[in-house]
């Protein structure tokens, strides 16, 4: 089934980028790889929704994309200014 192949490919990319999270030379690399992992998790949820025909998984994907964007913004703000909020 093609959906399983796509799930395997996206999981392989998750494993590759986890190596970048672990050995990223700077904190920018780690934040970038973390953002990539959150986007990839959203894609995995969309593929699981296609595989199982469950619409509820897409709600989880929507919430996860919002949380990933907010965490990335907070991390870059902490990296640049030294704090998240004033």
């Amino acid at each position, binding site marked *: 089934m093609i959906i399983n192949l*796509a799930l395997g490919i996206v999981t392989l990319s998750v494993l590759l980028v986890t190596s970048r999270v672990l050995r990223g030379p700077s904190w920018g690399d780690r934040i970038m790889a973390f953002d990539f992992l959150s986007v990839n998790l*959203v*894609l995995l949820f969309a*593929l699981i929704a*296609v595989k199982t025909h469950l619409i509820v998984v897409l709600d989880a994907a929507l919430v996860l994309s919002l949380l990933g964007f907010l965490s990335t913004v907070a991390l870059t703000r902490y990296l640049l*200014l030294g704090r998240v909020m004033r």
Partner: protein
Amino acid sequence: MADFSPLRDIPILIGAFFVLTAAVGMVRFPDLYSRLHASSKLVTLGSAGIFLGAALELTDAAAFTRLAAVLLFQFLTTPLTAYLIAQAAYLRGLPPLLGSGGQRGVDEWGALGQAEQVAQADPDAQRSLAAEGQ
């Protein structure tokens, strides 16, 4: 290969291929800025393919609206996060690998270590610094 429906499977395979290409680029590119280039553009294209295939498979109004919302949100936020990460890393003083002279670590804009100046140019950060000084 038992149930191959091309309307669903070809966009999903194209999207998964581009996501894998983004991962390979993020592992093998030499610089943070080139890695950001690979990450943001290819992930946007790959998520467009996967969400298009999912919307063609799940022919339902609820699924279609959710997929359209997630896809629109990805299109809005992926370049924004790439820009934020590049700005933060550059203003914290990470030099680009390829500078003006083709040498390592040459900074052609001369903006190394200006995070404090940016923090002072930002009015919110300025008020925060004044509050910390008191």
